[in-house]
């Protein structure tokens, strides 16, 4: 995902999906369902078609393990650094600038 690569570049000066603090989930592909997950210092922010959800890192998910099975991914999001909104860049977050379909915005 371009936003993940841009975020990874902000961290590593190279292109890597693993080092990004943002992730586009493409789980449950047959349902064509996706979401953008952002790691903040203490929260995971999950943005998807039906709205925004903020989960405290470490909190037990409602619905148990089965609900999260469909999002299984080899990318360990919890190991990533939290988003700093690209604070050292005058132009703001790189993920916004590189989203090819303008799917990300910031209030």
């Amino acid at each position, binding site marked *: 995902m371009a936003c993940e690569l841009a975020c990874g570049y902000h961290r590593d000066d190279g292109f890597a999906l693993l080092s990004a603090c943002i992730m586009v989930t493409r789980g449950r592909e047959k*349902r064509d369902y996706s979401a953008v997950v952002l790691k903040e210092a203490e929260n995971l922010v999950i943005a998807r078609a039906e709205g925004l959800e903020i989960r405290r890192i470490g909190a037990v998910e409602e619905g148990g393990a089965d609900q999260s099975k469909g999002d299984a991914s080899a990318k360990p999001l919890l190991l990533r650094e939290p988003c700093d909104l690209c604070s050292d860049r005058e132009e703001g977050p790189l993920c916004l600038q590189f989203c090819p379909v303008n799917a990300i915005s910031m209030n």
Partner: protein
Amino acid sequence: MEYLSTHKISIIDLVTSKVMDQELDEDLVKEKIGGAGITTALYEEYQGEDPIVLGTGLLTGTLAPASALGMITAKSPLTGKVCHSPLTLYAGLELKYSGFDYVVIKGKSQKPVYLWIHDGVADVNDAKDVWGKDVWSSTDTIRDLMGDQLIQVLTIGKAGESESDFAQVCINYWASGDRWGFGKLFGQKKLKLVALRGMSLLEVSDAEGFVKQCKELLSTLKAGAFVDKKGIEEIPAIIGEENIQKWLGPIVHRHVSCFNTPFPTNTFVFLDEDPKLLKETEKKEPGFLITDIHGLLGFKKLGLSAADACALLRDCAKYGIDPVAVAELNQKAGKNKPDEIKKSFSGLKGSLESIGKGKFSPWCPHFGLSANEWEKKQAVAYIFGIHPIFALLSPELSEEKLIELANLGTGLGFTSETLDKVIADITK
């Protein structure tokens, strides 16, 4: 090869199940640039062993706009020529990050196998859990087995296993641009599927300059002709075919881009769910992702409703057969009922008028270009790893801009003369 690369080529011998890693030689990159330039060279190097070469373009999986493309290069069972088939969606991206820029698959296995290519490792595994399954079940099985739903799967279905002339290598659950019968080649090699996933790091020679140039180019593209256009149903009107928006529109759920591509060339339709639903559906298989405009138009020309046409596309994808061939040969046979068309999958035979005449898959429309112009522009897209449809729709992605990006990314000093020579080599 130090930059925009994972440095490695995997050479997989299906006869012995042995895998050998080879370094990607910088001199080869200087001479052939990448993508189809190098897959063609690798094909020629191993041609005595009837290889299938998987590859990525020089810019694939980077911030370069539309850098989604990977490719399969092999001799087409349909044409007898060495041809290239596009790997879109996220398959090119995952191949690049799997740890190998190129994969050469040579020889034939005695028993069904699959390849698991990930994190710099390529394994040849027994395919007993997936052989005999359709495309959708195979993808589900392999993802569940590996515990990762983001694995990209290049797989054949029953058409490939039975070595149908029109068997297609599908991407995950969806039709691909394989119009060359490469699915038959997979079947002949007893190769059920290739699973791709990786976490590599691509280093960049002039990282700041490369990213700045990508950003400027993306801004230009996003202000261009595509601002208000979305989805596969926009394409027929652009290529001079009948406008299908009223026909398809009522079942469209959303549009889907391939990796980092500003124009979504794929459209998801809901067949068993309300297309207006925004929250996640409870249904496991609500619809289908249309990735091939010619297949869709082929079924429309048989007089089918959009829902029936898309349901047939889904059936073709599960069986792993080229929908364009199915539509054309059924039209010739005078069949236009979904049930009888579906029954024709097994044992489908005949010659196609829509078969590709050149080296690149006719999956990408010509958009009014002459055959030579189209072939040249496809060559450029396949060398750099740019989405073939988007490349034709975006004059802003010029050869000069792509060479400039390649030089910022690699520091290798490519020139237009280098590119012209590679184009001439791979289109001759």
